[in-house]
């Protein structure tokens, strides 16, 4: 039994070691410049916030954080909003070609971004949407919407039809039932889908890199990839910027873990 009690902390330690690359980057962000190259000792002689200072005062990260947050939130709202409506229709209402549409949704989640980036680029260019939030919101939604629809359709189907029938008996129309019965019940599912959509949008790189040109719409991944270094690469500053870029994902993984896991599993298990 003692082995059993030792096992849990050992596994936890093992996983902490697994996440070590990230913690190393966190340590790097606090290591003074002079001790970065070459690496002489594991633990720095002192910790410094100089890198964070540079990132906040002299880099484009603050603006990029605002851009990313706005784009991810709006894209998530759009995807979940449109997706919930479509999912309800596909799950509960008579739709001719429902199977085909659902299959199309699944196929759409497998589309490679590299294939759609050139036509989307031309499209954004034609509508003058380059370097705007809207371009990325639309591009991100195009990828998260099929997943959201598919997830939510599954979640809605799990709700016992009896509840909706009871509402119908009480005289509620379809829309009212959707609003007052279905949506509250599928809210956790919407949270899961929303979290996945937010993560995708926050982490998205290819579209953001191709459609943005200035800090007006540069997102965090792009700002990080293009982190300026005049002569040498500022590893400490990059580490600090990386940590900032990771805050929302970390927050989601820690605070909303249950919803996140549920979303991931539902997506995979609904084959």
């Amino acid at each position: 039994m003692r082995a059993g009690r030792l096992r849990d902390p050992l596994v936890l330690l093992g996983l902490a070691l697994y996440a070590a690359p990230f913690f190393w980057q966190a340590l790097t962000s606090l290591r003074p410049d002079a001790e970065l190259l070459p690496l002489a000792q594991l633990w720095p002689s002192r910790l410094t916030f100089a890198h964070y200072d540079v990132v906040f005062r002299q880099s484009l990260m603050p603006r990029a954080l605002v851009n990313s947050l706005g784009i991810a939130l709006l894209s998530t709202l759009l995807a979940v909003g449109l997706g919930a409506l479509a999912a309800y229709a596909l799950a509960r209402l008579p739709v001719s070609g429902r199977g085909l549409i659902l299959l199309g949704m699944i196929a759409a989640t497998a589309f490679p971004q590299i294939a759609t980036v050139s036509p989307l680029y031309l499209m954004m260019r034609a509508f003058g949407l380059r370097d705007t939030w809207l371009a990325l919101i639309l591009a991100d939604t195009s990828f998260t919407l099929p997943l959201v629809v598919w997830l939510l359709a599954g979640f809605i189907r799990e709700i016992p039809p009896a509840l909706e029938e009871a509402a119908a008996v009480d005289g509620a129309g379809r829309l009212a039932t959707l609003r007052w019965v279905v949506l509250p019940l599928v809210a956790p599912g919407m949270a899961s889908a929303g979290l996945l959509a937010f993560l995708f949008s926050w982490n998205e790189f290819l579209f953001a890199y191709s459609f943005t040109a200035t800090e007006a719409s540069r997102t965090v991944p792009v700002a990080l990839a293009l982190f300026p270094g005049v002569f040498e690469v500022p590893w400490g500053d990059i580490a600090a910027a990386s940590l900032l870029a990771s805050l929302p994902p970390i927050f989601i993984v820690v605070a909303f873990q249950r919803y996140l896991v549920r979303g991931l599993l539902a997506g995979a298990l609904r084959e």
Partner: protein
Amino acid sequence: MTDRRLAWLLLAPALLVLGGLTVYPALWVLWLSLQYRIPVFSIARWAGLEHYAFLAVDTRFWNAAGVTGAFTLVSVALECALGLGVALALRGQRHWRRAALALLLLAWALPSVVTAKLFEWLYHPSGGLVNFLLGGLAINWLGDPALALPALIAADVWRTTPFVALLCYARLLTIPPELYEAGQVDGAAGWPAFARITWPLVRPILLVALLFRTLDALRAFDLMFVLTGGGPAGSTETLTVYAYRALFQTLQVGFGSAIGVVVFVLVMLVAVGYLRLINRQERTA
């Protein structure tokens, strides 16, 4: 309003968005791949299958295909093996489960650019932790054509193993312990238990994970683009990186689209093939 009409009303916005941003571009990229298209110089001419004919004999294309194939096969194999291992280790976890999952999922949730910068620093010849732990060797992981691809694969495996591990872990949790007692094996540990009970039950979910991960690996772009840029000398240049360079560096929208279409077809073929495999598995199970 009839149910039918309401259905279409609710579906319309989503279908419109997807139609305009996914279906239409998918058809458009096919159309672009049949043209000589360089917007900067206003070049727009019919090319027919010229780009594809060139790709068939283009050594850079075949190199990229090889890199993509090697990356996908090795990466996915390692992820699945490692993911299953982690799931098995995690299965008996009673306390601090949330902390364990948080540590595990951290690697998966990070933006790929963050992961790329992370590993770029780890692999640094003089400032990187890897060389430090190896006793001060000055190995140029990302600058040596023979080492760059394995280094890239290691970074990708680190990033995606948690997903596989989570799937397997969830499945393992649903296996009732009574099964092991009924099978007359000593507890859930040990090879016989694994081979006769655990593996058959976990295999279907592993196949699903394999499908997702293969599709993702074929489409992967961010990590290799930021970590190595496809270098050195194309040793980590996948089809996606080649397509990106053709599109946005040499501004050949027609040619780049052709490479994109190839990736598209490849991904779709693999998806269809896998789905049929899974369906057949489910039918025989």
